[in-house]
């Protein structure tokens, strides 16, 4: 067991090194959520959300943190694994005695590190530019949300890479699957309203669930749903099950 952990840690380190070395890739992974944070954040009217005493930025900033998690763990990880499979890197890994669990844990660990760095940037900009600072007592929610979010969207990313028939199709599938949901979940606009039936659908999808957990870290929300962590866990299980069924090394 300890050997698997050591191997996973080494793998994560290797993945991080190569991630930062491909500057373009790293830059744009960061650029997307940060650009949206600055662009949308600066056009969002300051003040309370209609009908509440909640500052709009206190919802918007954690929503963008959730968005960063999705981009790093779901879109990038899914597309990366699909590319590694296409290039035969996964096949090569398979020829070694490295346990599959150690490899995937390493890749996920590296994704977690990247996500953490993006989150730190979003929180810093959110604090300095939009004066949205998490509550001290909300840090466990943020930490818990990040862990659940990375694991859930990471599992979905692995599932996505298994579902994509080719490396080229992974990114379009990723974007087409999360972006509409993110918009309907009110990630970019907390006041975005959808029909009741659609809202019910969105509630059982992992995007809003993650955003709401993170929002808790910034401002206590009255409609706090205890179901959110379970929604994420359920999607984690679904992602793992699909990956176990369909993940291919070549």
């Amino acid at each position: 067991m300890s050997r698997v952990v050591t191997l996973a840690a080494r793998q994560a380190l290797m993945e991080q090194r190569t991630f930062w070395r491909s500057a373009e890739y790293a830059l744009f992974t960061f650029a997307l959520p940060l650009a949206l944070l600055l662009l949308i954040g600066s056009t969002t009217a300051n003040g309370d959300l209609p009908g509440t005493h909640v500052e709009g930025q206190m919802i918007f900033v954690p929503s963008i943190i959730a968005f960063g998690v999705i981009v790093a763990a779901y879109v990038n990880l899914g597309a990366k694994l699909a590319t590694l499979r296409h290039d035969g890197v996964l096949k090569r890994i398979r020829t070694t005695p490295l346990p599959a669990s150690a490899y995937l844990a390493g890749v996920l660990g590296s994704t977690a590190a990247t996500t953490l760095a993006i989150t730190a940037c979003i929180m810093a900009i959110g604090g300095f530019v939009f004066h949205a600072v998490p509550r001290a007592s909300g840090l466990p929610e943020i930490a818990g949300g990040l862990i659940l979010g990375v694991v859930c969207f990471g599992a979905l990313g692995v599932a996505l890479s298994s579902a994509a028939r080719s490396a080229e199709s992974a990114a379009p599938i990723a974007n087409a699957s999360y972006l509409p949901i993110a918009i309907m979940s009110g990630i970019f606009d907390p006041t975005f309203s959808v029909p009741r039936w659609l809202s019910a659908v969105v509630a059982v999808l992992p995007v809003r669930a993650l955003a709401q957990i993170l929002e808790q870290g910034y401002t206590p929300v009255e409609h706090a749903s205890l179901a959110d962590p379970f929604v994420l866990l359920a999607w984690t299980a679904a992602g793992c099950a699909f990956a176990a069924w369909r993940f291919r090394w070549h």
Partner: protein
Amino acid sequence: MNAIEVSALTMSYGDREVLRGVDFEVASGEVFCLLGPNGAGKTTTVEILEGFRQRTSGTVTVLGMDPQAQPTKLRERIGIVLQECGFPRQARVKELIDCWRSYYPSPRATSDLLSVVELNEDKNTQVRKLSGGQRRRLDLALALAGDPDLIFLDEPTTGFDPESRRRCWEAIENLRTLGKTVLLTTHYLDEAERLADRVAILRDGQIQVAGTVRHVARQAGVPTRISFTAPQRLRDGDLTVPAGLNVKVTGEQAVCLSACTASASVALRELLTWCAENDLGDLDDLSVITPTLEDAYLQLVAGGAR
């Protein structure tokens, strides 16, 4: 002790029978080459040996283990060079080798690996900047990272220029001197002839013939060819060659067709005796050409002699 033992191995994909009772063995320290036309079942056989595929029936032992029962344990002791396998492009050569070494319980020294594949000067180069030949050598370095006892090489020199090919051959010969067992598949018969201690030809899911190149040639029945420039008197019909030698004269060239591999020296002695008896002096352009593996292979596979 044998590194690989395969007996009565069969493999079916649905109704399609790909392997129909394959038997062969590879001794420890041997370079063994598996030949055969596309679709004969080479890849399937090798993948079963490597533990990637579950066989339908038969017994397979690789380094004393059943590959499908202990794939991870087995992979600690084998090295595999696959065709067209990518690298993480941003990794540096030495970094990647060290990463691979960490997967194995008793890896080979990094400096050793770098020098075996002649990548010492490029150890800090990113993989994406390496040439095709360098990448193939890195393939080999990664396969050797765990200091394996048995190495699988799948068409290791496909697409190589002659210089890279020669270097790869040297690296493989180097493995032999280290006492490693090598199982090679290739389409290049000269490669097999140069490197392999023994070859096996797989055809239609069965081993058609296995043994040394000489043995295979004998099995194929390709004769040793003795040829010389026909002396003037022979061409004019003043002289006849003993009928047993079955010499055929075409224009200036005479070819002795009777010499099968087993009796080539007998035929040659008889020819030279005849030559001396008739005062022909030296036979011009006398040459004895033993059949190449290619001749034997074509005879066995393309010639249709089952």
